[in-house]
């Protein structure tokens, strides 16, 4: 039957629109000359953007209007992502000229289907913790949480982002600062038969060019939870940075070197990360800095690239 045009119940989930909208989007993408399979992560992000456009005022409208709004908002999103060629080109050139340092947040692993903080709540509850504070204060629950997360993480595979960054490390990507607990960068390196130096504890650093993991590592699960000694930093905390990293930037002169700084899939809400990494690397001295994320409202910002990590990195880094 034709789509129901009766008034929509405000309680109806917007999820019911996903399948028909996705079909229309795929047809649209093919019409404008792209491969729907290639843009699949963008399509998913676009549908989420479309669903976000359904405000309370719109939610009570006819389903036929809501569906069209989700579809059109998603089309705008996709076309916005594809319209950023000037930004891609400049950023790519800057990486080519000056190399880069990447700060990777949860958004990178999200494309490997690892949970973000909102769905981590379920794992926390699974471990019988009532809050993150409760989890941290109970060694047993905390330990169990890490083990359970490792099980989830082990089921996942590295995304194109993980593989691309490793492929360009350390020639175009000098350092990778990963704030995620998973080991997807390490597994991407294994897949490429590469050895990378990982720093997952706050200890004296030797050599240069590392993968930094300040917030914990599924490969290092200790009985206690001490930051810098294998302890994990949880979503309700303000982040943590190894002193050894600060010292490393001085010793190796990374602090004063020119490079392009890329922040990818990270919401910058942790004060310690902003104060000790983002601000100094972006501003002291001022460096070309780009942010990659899904926020369409930042499309007009010349240094913000809208899009999923996989898709954007393919535009920026060689070897995809």
């Amino acid at each position, binding site marked *: *039957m*034709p789509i129901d*045009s*009766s008034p929509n119940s405000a309680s109806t989930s917007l999820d019911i629109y996903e399948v028909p909208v996705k079909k229309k989007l795929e047809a649209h993408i093919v019409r404008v000359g792209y491969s729907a399979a290639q843009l699949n992560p963008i399509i998913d992000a676009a549908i989420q953007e479309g669903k976000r*456009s359904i*405000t309370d*005022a*719109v939610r009570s*409208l*006819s389903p*036929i*209007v809501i569906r*069209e*709004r989700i*579809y*059109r*908002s998603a*089309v*705008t999103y996709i*076309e*916005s992502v594809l*319209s950023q060629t000037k930004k891609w080109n400049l950023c790519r050139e800057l990486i080519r000229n000056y190399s880069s340092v990447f700060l990777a947040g949860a958004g990178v692993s999200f494309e490997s289907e690892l949970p973000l903080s909102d769905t981590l709540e379920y794992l926390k509850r699974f471990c019988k913790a009532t809050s993150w504070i409760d989890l941290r204060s109970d060694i047993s629950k905390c330990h169990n949480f890490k083990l359970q997360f490792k099980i989830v993480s082990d089921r996942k595979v590295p995304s194109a982002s993980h593989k691309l960054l490793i492929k360009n490390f350390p020639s175009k990507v000098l350092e990778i600062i990963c704030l995620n607990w998973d080991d997807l960068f390490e597994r991407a390196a294994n897949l490429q038969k590469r050895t990378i130096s990982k720093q997952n504890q706050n200890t004296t650093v030797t050599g240069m060019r590392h993968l930094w993991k300040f917030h914990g590592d599924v490969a290092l699960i200790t009985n206690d939870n001490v930051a810098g000694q294998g302890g994990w930093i949880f979503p309700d905390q303000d982040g943590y940075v190894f002193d050894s990293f600060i010292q490393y930037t001085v010793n190796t002169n990374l602090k004063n070197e020119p490079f392009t700084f890329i922040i990818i899939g990270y919401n910058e809400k942790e004060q310690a990360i902003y104060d000790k990494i983002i601000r100094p690397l972006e501003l002291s001295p001022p460096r070309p800095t780009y942010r990659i994320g899904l926020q*369409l*409202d930042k*499309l*007009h910002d010349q240094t913000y690239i809208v899009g999923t990590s996989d898709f954007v990195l393919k535009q920026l880094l060689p070897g995809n």
Partner: protein
Amino acid sequence: MESILDKIIFDIASENPTASMDVIAEAVIHTIESEDFVSNTIRKVVTPNKLDVRISELRSKRLPTKQRIRITERVTDTRLVERVKEMCVLPIEHSSFNPLIHTDGAKVYFASSDNYPDSPALASTTISAPLSSPHRVILESIPLPDNNTTTSIPLRGITDRNTELNSVTPADLLNDIDGKFDQSEPLSLYDFYQMISLVKISRHVMRLLPVISKILSRDLELRKKLYGSDSFEEPSDLYNKPSTEPTELRFFLPSYICESFMTLIIHEYGRLHEEVGRSFIDREISYESYLRQTERYALDADRLVSEFR
């Protein structure tokens, strides 16, 4: 009168895209002489010379017939007729929009198609009306016209880029539509055909639709008065009837057309959203403005959809 002639020429020319002018002229004359629905008046005034001129004019436009809007003799305002004639040759932007309206020369068809993939009954059903007796509306289970046939007309507003349309004001069109249908008798499929043609040539679709909604509402009231509300048949009942026996659809037609107009509203809303989206991408407006404007369009579209529901 000329409009019927044009229609015949369009149909024949579209079916024979490579035919010479002489061949088309001959076929047109043959049609005029043989078809019942062509009045004697037309037969008398059409001369080979006049045909040559018309065919030549149409040929010079170099546009496929399916991209033209046919002129009907029921458009009585002379100025509008002239304007519509000019518009007939303007290209209509790509659209997969349906329902389709088409004619095979003897009947006007109003058919649903792939817009309703979940409704095989509706998708395989065509409403038609003989031009000679347009009020006799018949539901037939016959194959739908192919989207690509030359006589199918995608229904949608013409793009704003067609600046020649700008001289037709919404008031012109509103007055024309509202004044044309006196509603002393129910609307025929042919009337709907004209209404849709007017909407289609307008760049003010959203402003026209409330008037059309009013006309359709009046039409439904008239049908109830004439035929009695007891005989009202829900479309869902009609789907289940044996398809071999044609069914008169006294009430089904307006609701069917309303549904089609709802599709048109949504299509138009989508077009407006797309335009604003383009402005946002091109940095002409902010993200907040984009959200605000598109939300307003959604509310407008919903209000119009409610009128047709």
